[in-house]
Structure formats: structure tokens, C-alpha cells
């Protein structure tokens, strides 16, 4: 929570969307600010907004150019931002997620643990020690980013990309744990698998986890 929060900037993304950015680097304060701002927009969106999409450190707003224009919308957003105090985020729900760590489910667990100077069981214990916050979903259907681990669990991504990993794969890199909900290629370390799939396409909304929710990871029984 210590990194400085930059003044939010409003950047056009083509001629039908604006991006409100709370940072250019991934940090907890910027993420919390983006999540909080998206929630305020969900409650009271300015005229002409068609879609609100919170990201890791930004919020995308798609607008209808027949109902508003970017200059007017940016003005309304600036007003909302200036009136906002950095309020504590409303705590989200807590979800318990059991993970089958290592083995065939997590082929990179041993190397990730070793790179951090831990045994595999020490790594799992450290990984599960504290609940993680859902930073955002996106990137792929139901794909969820959770953070942040303490610095002692910070490991860069792998240098090569694995072909598709299945839904429910638990990924680890850059101080975060991510969970896939559809098969995707990945450059993150594959540390485990969960039966929890954060994507139910015939339900609306199609995801279960939301930004700001907490996840308590545990080791699934064998």
C-alpha cells in the first residue's frame, strides 16, 4: 500500500471508449482505486456510458458517441474523481478454493519453490498463508488475477510459453496467483489445479468471483 498513487489520467481508446488510469505499474493502491471507481460508476454512471470494465489499474468506459462525447464525459469523470476521497474499499466476499498443488497438476511447483529457496511444502504453506484479493477478471473468460503475495514470493514469468493449459489451472508469477477458467496458453508457472471454475457461460453474470473479493487458498486432500 506504500506506492504513491498517481493522479488519475483519462485517455481515449479509439473514438468510442475512454480509459481512466490510476497507474501505469501494477500496484495495490492503483488497483484498489480502479476497483473502487468502477463500483461508483456501477452505482451512478454518467449519461451515455455503455460499458464499465475494471482492469488491473484502470477502468474502461465504452460510450455511445450519439449520447455523449469524450470531452463532456471526461469532464464528468474528472468531477467524480475530484469528489472522491480515497475511501476504504468495501470488503468483498471470501471464497475458499482448494488446490491440488504439484505433480501432474502443477509441473512448475518444484522449480518455482526452488527458485524461491524453499521446499515444495514450504512454498505451498507460504502461498496459502494469507488470503489474496481478486485484482480483476478478464484477459480470458473468467480468468482471475489474485494478489499480492509478499515480496519473498515474487518470481518472474517463465521465459517460454506453454501451450494450452486446462480450465482450473492455478498459475503463479510476479507476486500473483491466477486461475484459468478456459483453456489458454500461458507463460506463468503452473503450480496446481482446482475444481473451481470461475466461468458459467449460461449464467448472468457468468463469473462468480468479483474484483475485491478475497480468496483463501488451501491444499486439496489427495
Amino acid at each position, binding site marked *: 500500500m506504500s506506492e504513491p498513487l498517481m493522479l488519475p489520467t483519462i*485517455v*481515449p*481508446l*479509439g*473514438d*468510442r*471508449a475512454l*480509459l481512466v*488510469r490510476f*497507474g*501505469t*505499474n*501494477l500496484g495495490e493502491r492503483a488497483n484498489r482505486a480502479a476497483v473502487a471507481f*468502477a463500483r461508483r460508476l456501477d452505482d451512478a454512471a454518467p449519461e451515455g456510458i*455503455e*460499458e*464499465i*470494465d*475494471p*482492469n*488491473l*489499474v*484502470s477502468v*474502461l468506459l*465504452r460510450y455511445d*458517441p*450519439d449520447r455523449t*462525447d*469524450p470531452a463532456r464525459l471526461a469532464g464528468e469523470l474528472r468531477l467524480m474523481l475530484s469528489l472522491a476521497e480515497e475511501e476504504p474499499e468495501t470488503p468483498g466476499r471470501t471464497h475458499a478454493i482448494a488446490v491440488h498443488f504439484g505433480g501432474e497438476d502443477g509441473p512448475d511447483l518444484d522449480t518455482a519453490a526452488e527458485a524461491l529457496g524453499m521446499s515444495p511444502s514450504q512454498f505451498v504453506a507460504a502461498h496459502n498463508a494469507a488470503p489474496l484479493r481478486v485484482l480483476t*477478471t*478478464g*484477459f*480470458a*473468460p*473468467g*480468468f482471475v488475477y489474485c494478489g499480492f503475495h509478499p515480496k519473498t514470493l515474487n518470481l518472474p514469468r517463465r521465459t517460454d510459453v506453454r501451450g494450452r493449459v486446462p480450465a482450473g489451472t492455478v498459475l503463479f508469477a510476479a507476486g500473483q496467483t491466477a486461475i484459468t*477458467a*478456459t483453456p489458454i496458453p500461458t507463460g506463468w508457472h503452473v503450480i496446481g489445479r482446482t475444481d473451481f471454475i470461475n*466461468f458459467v*457461460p*449460461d449464467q*448472468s*453474470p*457468468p*463469473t462468480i468471483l468479483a474484483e475485491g473479493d478475497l480468496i483463501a487458498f488451501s491444499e486439496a486432500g489427495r
Partner: protein
Amino acid sequence: MSGGITVLRAGPLATIQDAGRFGMLRYGIAASGPMVRSAFAVAGTLLGGRAGAAIEFTRTGLDFRAEGEVEAAFSGGAFNLSVNGEARDWNSALQLAAGDLVRVAPGVWGNYGYVRFGREIAVPLLLGSRATNSTVGLGGFGGRALVTGDRVPFGDAPEQGGAEGGGSAAPSDAPVRVVWGLHADLFPGAMRQLFVDKPFEISTRLDRMGVRLARGETFPQAGILSLVSDAVVPGDIQILGDGTPIVLMRDHQPTGGYPRIATVISADLDRFAQMRPGSLVRFEPVTLTHALAAGRAAR
């Protein structure tokens, strides 16, 4: 209530598309929808606004047999249309009888064409839309492209939607207009100049996710940039690590971590989508005000 069509020949990536699955970006789902929105709208207007979802087909066309009486309207790039071997006008609506054989053959320009019907295509609504997102295997015909032998069933007549507008995505030598992108300021001025000075070639690697561009000499690398992933919109031009630009299209990944130098304006994205491999494209930066005015003019 019965009726439908049987696909006799489907080129690659013929998919069912409606206007799109909007509002799902936060869950990780791009809107999809027609690659050439204006052509999809023209087909709807040809049916007096009473048009269902479309079958979007690619350059090689589509052959099908009508299994009952139905009105059909065709639009998109230039294709050659015939019914039972008899040539018909492209960009037209016509009445089909049970057993009619419709052949849509490749024409002189364009990558995408549309057929819409006076009946709704009876595939389930998924998250409010019938659009296929073939990248993630979602919606439309079981999330996949149509193949020979598929029977696409019809449901009720669609509701009167009113005219959907049109506009043309006809080919022209005019540059494709862009507004500078999210990361334009990270590119040195000389590189931005190079981006607009020389044309790129549309490569053969194009699909509903994106269109890769090529150039005799490669566009210089943007350097190693470590960017936090941000939302992506159709038309965003991202530069890969090896310097290859990709224009992201309707089935784009919802977020991207590569630097984006520019975004194709809404008014020009349809025309860009219809550019065939081997054709040259030049990008012309315009102001957001210009882009908005061009968008209004195109609607």
C-alpha cells in the same frame, strides 16, 4: 415454425453473428459481432429491419439449401450470388422456396459477406447474444464455425428493428484513419513517423481476432516494454516484441500487454476488415474530433 438451411459448402470461419455480445468485457469476453458492421446493417435494412442474426462468411463464400420458404438478404464485399444456378444481384433481398440452392461464390473484393433471414436463427441466446466467439468457443453454433452438413434451424420472425443504416466499406486507396493509441507516447517520434510514412501490407495471417501487418523491412522493435495489461478495443494496433503490428478485431482478447501505437477509427474499421491479404494500407493519424465527425457521417 420449422425451416432452416442446410450448409452445402462453408469456407473457413463461417459463423453466426448478431450485433454482438456487449457488456461482457469485465468477465473476459469480447463483444464479437460482425467484422463489417455496415454490411450486416445493410442486409438488415434490405429486409425492412425485420432481420435476424446473420451468417457471416469469408472470401470463399457459402453454399446452402433452403429447407422452407424464407426471405434472405445478402450484403458485404463483392460476391457472386446465384439461386438454382441463376445469377442474382448481390446486395439484394429475395424470397427463397423450399429446396432452393443458393450459391455465394467469391467475387473481386472483400473478406466478409453476410446473409440474414426474415426468421431468427434458432441458436440459444448466450449472455444475451447469438454471436459466435470462435476464439473461446462461445455462442452461435456451439461456439464453432459452420461446416458442410450443418442444418441451421430457424425460429420465429424477428422483431421489427427499424432501419439499421448502412454505409459502404467499398475498397479505396484512401488511408485508414487512426487516432494515436494508449502507448503512443512510449514510441519515439521517428518511429511514429515511420508508422505513418510507409504503407504496410495486409498479411495472410488474418482472422476475427486480428490482422497481422507486414512490411518489406520490419517495423523496428518498440524495445522491451513492461506494460501492465489494460483493456483493448477493436481497432487497437499493437506492436509485438518482434516489431509486427497487429490490428485487433472483433474477437480480440479483452486485455493486452503489448504496446498499442494507434487505434483505427470506427468509421474506417469496416473498410480495413475488407482489405485482402497483399493489399497495402497506409495509416493517417487524425484527431479525436475528426474521428467522431467521421463516425457521425458514417452512421
